Each structure stands twice: as C-alpha cells, then as structure tokens.
C-alpha cells in the first residue's frame, strides 16, 4: 500500500492500483467518460488528465500508483489540456440537450459546464450521422451524440458476455454497431448500456420523451422479478411537478427503473425484466372487495371472511412468496395456528424468458421464497381429504386445480375474473404502495419504500391478517 500525494495532501492508496481509483476514493474528483469501475481500462476518452509532478500530464485511469507519486488534479496544464480535450469531444456532438433524454444527468453536459463552457471555435459544419438506429426492440442509438467511449461495447463483452456490440470504421466515421447480424435483443442485460452511456447516445424506447429527468425522483425498491432481489430505483414524478391538465395517471406512474448499486446483491446492474417493473405494476388494480362476486365494503368482506375462518374445520393457506417479511410474520402470528400453511410460487418463468444464468437471473421468479419458507417450511402445497377452506394469498393459483367443493378466500391485487369465483375476495396493496423487506436466496434482506398512493378500498396485508384473526363483529 504505497502512499502518494494528491494536490500536496498525502493519501493512502489502500487496495487501489490506479491514480483515478485512489483520487475518487479519497474525495478528489477527476472527470472521466470511458472509465467505469466494473469495466476494463481502455483510456480512449483522454479526459481524466492529471499532472504527475516532473513528468507532465497523463491519464489517471491508466496511471499506476507507486510510493512517493505526486499528483496535481487541477493545475494549469491539466485545465488547459482538459478543456482542449472537451472541445475535441464536442467537435461533432450536436449539443441538442434540449431534446435529449440524458440532459440533466449527462456527464458530458456537466463537464462542459464545469471545465469548458465555451462555444465551438470550429467553422466546419458538424458531421451528420444516423439518428435513430434501432439496436433492439428496447434501445435506440443516436450516433451523432456518441462520443465513442466504448463502455457499451465493453459491457457486452465483459459483463453480459453476449458480445453483441462492436466498433465499425475509424476516426470520426467510427460507429457503434451490432456485430454481424446480431441484435441486442439476445442480451437479457442490454438496458444497462443506457445507464452506463455517459451521454445520450443510447436511449430507452420506453422512456423516450416521457419526462425530463429533473421532474423525476427515485424511490428505493426491490425488484420482485426473481429470487435475486436486486435493489432498484423506481423513478416517478416529483410531487411539486405534478400534472394538472395532462393525464393525472402520469403523476404516479413508474416511468423508468434503474439499478440501485448494491455490492452485496446486484452490483450496479439489473436485467431487462427488472426494467419492465413499471408495466408489471401498471395492470388494472382491484379496488373493491367481493362477496360471491358481489361488490361489498372491505369491512363486510372481512366479517364474512372471519365467519368462514371460524366455521372451517380444516383450513389450508397458500402463503405468497411475494409477501414482505413483515407481512409473513403478521400472517404467522395472527393466523399461523388456524391454517395449515404452505408456501406457493406466485410467478413462474414466462415463455422466452431467460430462466437462470451466471450473472444475476435466478430460476425462482419470486422475491421472498426464502423468507416465506423460513417461517412456513418448504413442503409443496397438498390438500387433506377434509379440507373445507383454502386461503389464497397472491397470484399463481389455478382455481381449477383446487379440490372440488372447498370454500376459497382470496387475497389478490389485480382485476381478474377469478376474483368473483372466490367466496370472499379482498384486495390488498402491491409492493409500490407499502414498505417492507424481502429476503433474497442468499439471505440478504433489502428494503423497499412506497411511491404510489394506495387506492381506496385496498388494505395492507399486514393490517388485514390481525383483523381476520379477530372474532366476527369486532371493529375492522
């Protein structure tokens, strides 16, 4: 662990081996485009310039540290050369920040304002290139904005290992393109290149022109797509920017999902299924309790359910593996003795979905199977001869597969035809309407926060279970 000097201050390098890593770890910001902590070093953007005392200016991302090295991050030669480098990078950049979805979180925009800030001196017209090149169903590429940092190319080679992207031609004709006839559709992690792109060259089709990023705020959450339980940020409109004339549903809609960096679970990546979490939650919600298909108040439905539970001789509960740890504990404390409990799988892999791989995706498509099984055991659901009441919590049960003649008490989220087939149906809140924790397959517990209002008539499962356990007629 050599000791080096940055701007005259002695710093301990720790485990880091390059000047850029040491500087960032010790709070000295060095601008960079092509360098990414998870990717290999290429050193092609030439913006992370620092001055090595006695040896001139060089790039920090590829400068090894050694004992007694003395670095200046903001000396006059560094400022001059960095400014020239930014001018060069912007030579053919269209600077169409006004209509670019990256504006507001674009590193090129930030660096230009911080380190250069001048208009172009070139009299030559900017080179025109492909504007909307479809890399896949999900991603379009704007070659005019691309600064050729090759982060996306290295991502597909080193992280997702799909090897889809490559560079074509040379100089200012250079283009990022899929190699041969492949597309990014083959890559289940392709959307990560949108996040790691330092400019607005790679754009998400689903988020394009939906909102400027400064209107949005993230809510930390957990992806329920598989047992990995990646931590994610759900981006939705800030309350102070709510819309009044346009569609009011936009105010609570999840506009995009990005990874929330978490070294214990997912690192800085998530898969494409996690990006589609917004569409999963945007399905029609059930917001009225049903009694034999008839719309009733939640209070009436709870009373009817209490009667059913009291009259049942042999009751079985199919516990949701999408329930939070708090809800599962509430269920065990309130109803664990009344019911014979089995953990069910709410969600099975869809067709064409990658079932399991080495990076993140797990075969179990439920977020909290481990948390549920630690409370209710790992047995597969089975029904005794005399079963007369089945409580179904969550999705994934085919009503036709249940024993004939049993009474069904259904706690669900979505507006489905099955809701009316149950004796009693009570709508419960989805993940984005409550807070809680999931335990992933490795035992790591992650928290999620609410970002959408709970509709009237919907009740939190954690509140509902103690109410169901109370005798009929008690307040609900």
């Amino acid at each position: 662990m050599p000791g080096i000097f940055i701007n005259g201050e002695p710093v301990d390098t720790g485990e880091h081996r390059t000047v850029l890593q040491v500087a960032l770890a010790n709070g000295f910001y060095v601008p960079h485009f092509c360098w990414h902590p998870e990717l290999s070093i290429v050193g092609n953007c030439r913006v992370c310039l620092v001055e090595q005392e006695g040896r001139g200016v060089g790039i920090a991302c590829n400068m090894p540290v050694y004992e007694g090295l003395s670095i200046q991050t903001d000396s006059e030669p560094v400022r001059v050369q960095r400014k020239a480098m930014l001018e060069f990078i912007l030579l053919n950049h269209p600077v169409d920040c006004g209509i670019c979805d990256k504006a507001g979180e674009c590193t090129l925009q930030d660096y230009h304002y911080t380190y250069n800030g001048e208009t172009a001196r070139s009299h030559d017209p900017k080179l025109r290139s492909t504007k909307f090149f479809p890399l896949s169903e999900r991603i379009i590429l704007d070659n005019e904005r691309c600064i050729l940092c090759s982060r996306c190319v290295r991502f597909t080679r080193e992280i997702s290992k799909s090897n889809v992207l490559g560079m074509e031609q040379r100089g200012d004709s250079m283009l990022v393109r899929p190699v041969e006839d492949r597309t990014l559709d083959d890559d289940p992690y392709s959307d990560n290149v949108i996040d790691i792109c330092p400019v607005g060259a790679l754009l998400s089709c689903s988020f394009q022109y939906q909102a400027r990023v400064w209107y949005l705020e993230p809510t930390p959450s957990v992806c329920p797509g598989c047992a990995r339980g990646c931590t994610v940020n759900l981006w939705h409109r800030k309350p102070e920017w709510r819309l009044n004339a346009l569609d009011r549903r936009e105010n609570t809609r999840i506009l995009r999902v990005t990874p929330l960096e978490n070294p214990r679970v997912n690192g800085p990546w998530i898969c494409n299924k996690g990006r589609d979490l917004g569409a999963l939650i945007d399905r029609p919600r059930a917001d009225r309790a049903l009694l034999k298909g008839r719309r009733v108040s939640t209070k009436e439905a709870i009373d009817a359910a209490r009667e059913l539970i009291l009259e049942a001789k042999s009751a079985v509960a199919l516990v949701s593996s999408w329930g939070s740890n708090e809800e599962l504990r509430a269920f065990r404390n309130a109803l664990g003795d009344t019911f014979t409990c089995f953990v069910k799988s709410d969600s099975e892999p869809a067709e064409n979905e990658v079932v399991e791989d080495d990076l993140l995706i797990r075969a179990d498509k439920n977020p909290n199977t481990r948390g549920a099984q630690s409370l209710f055991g790992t047995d597969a659901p089975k029904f005794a001869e005399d079963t007369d009441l089945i409580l179904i919590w969550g999705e994934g049960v085919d009503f036709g597969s249940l024993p004939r003649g049993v009474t069904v008490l259904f706690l669900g989220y979505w507006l489905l035809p099955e809701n009316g087939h149950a004796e009693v149906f009570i709508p419960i809140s989805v993940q984005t309407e409550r807070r809680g924790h999931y335990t992933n397959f490795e035992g790591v517990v992650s928290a999620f926060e609410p970002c959408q209002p709970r509709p009237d008539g919907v009740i939190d499962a954690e509140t509902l279970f103690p109410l169901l356990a109370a005798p009929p007629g008690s307040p609900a």
Partner: protein
Amino acid sequence: MSAPQRERRVGAGNRPNVVDRRRKYWNEPKLGWWESFYLFEVLRGLSITGGVFLRNMKRWMTGKKGALTAYYPEEIRADYAAHNRGKHVLTQRPDGRPQCVACNLCATVCPARVIEIQAGFDPDDPAHPKYPERFEIDYSRCIFCGFCVEACPEDAIRMVRQVPGLPVPDRHPGMWLGKEELLNWQPARDPAKPYPPKPKGGA
C-alpha cells in the same frame, strides 16, 4: 404600516369582556348636521354618477375618445403598452407545425408552474424528432412574467399585446389554453424570424 389599533369595549351590557379589535380606518364617516339629512347627499351623489354617465354616453354616441367604459372582453383596450406581456403564442414553421421542440425549459423556469407539455416522437423528421403533442397553459395561475419567452431556445413561445380571454365560467378547463388555441397566431410575415428554407430530405 397599519393603522394603530385601539381597543374599545363594545356591548358592555351583554358581553363585558369582549374587546373589539377591528381595525379603525382613517375615513371613518363623521356626519355633520347637514349630512345627517341624507336626502340632499343622495341627490348630490346621483348628480355626480349621472353626470359621468351622460358624459360617457355622449362621447360614446358621438364616437369620441375618452369614454371610461370598455366593453371587456369584446372590446380590446387601446391603452395596452406596445410590449405588454399578454397572451402566449406558439410560433410556427412554414409548414404550420409548431416551432416548439418540447424541451420543457419554459415549464421548468415558470415560477407559477403553469405550463404542461406532453412530448411526442416523430422519427420521420430527424431535424425535429421531438414535438409537443399537447401544450397547456393555465391562465388562472399564470403571472405573465415572460420567463418562458426568455427561456425558450427556439423562439417558439412569445407573448402578444392582447390579453387572453379570461372571463370563462369555470377555471378548469376554461382557463387552460391548449396547443390549438396558442397556435392561432399566424402572421403573414414575421420580421423577428427569418425562417430558414424548408429542409429537403432527411439525414
């Protein structure tokens, strides 16, 4: 500076502890002997209002200037300043589409947050792929500061001298003006903007 507040006890018989904290105004009427007859004062007042009415009527009937009454909103007042910041207009390209690229800078800078823009994507026009599908301004909250005009990088929004037609029966949607309404302004010639020739073909 507010008028000094004196405390005065009122209704001493019924509510001995109630203190009247109402503000005292400088022109609290003090009726003299003559005024307390009322009838003469009423006639004097009628003669003032009647005189103004007849004078306005005469000027209006003879078409002379100086009538105090303007028939708002049918009649546009003549005395707006030449650079009055009135109603917003969206400027147009020669083909009639709005100049606006839906960058939301006007909506972001707006201190009253009255501008709402829904952006659309037009892949067939690489020069202007982003356009406003809807553009709404809430005139019930607009403060006519003109920041939107200054923020616009495309000279797409301006404010004209005339004021918007504000008297409507309801605030929503009556006082929201949409894209169609704002695009009504169609000058034959726009000296402020020499339009570039229409681009031929795409990139």
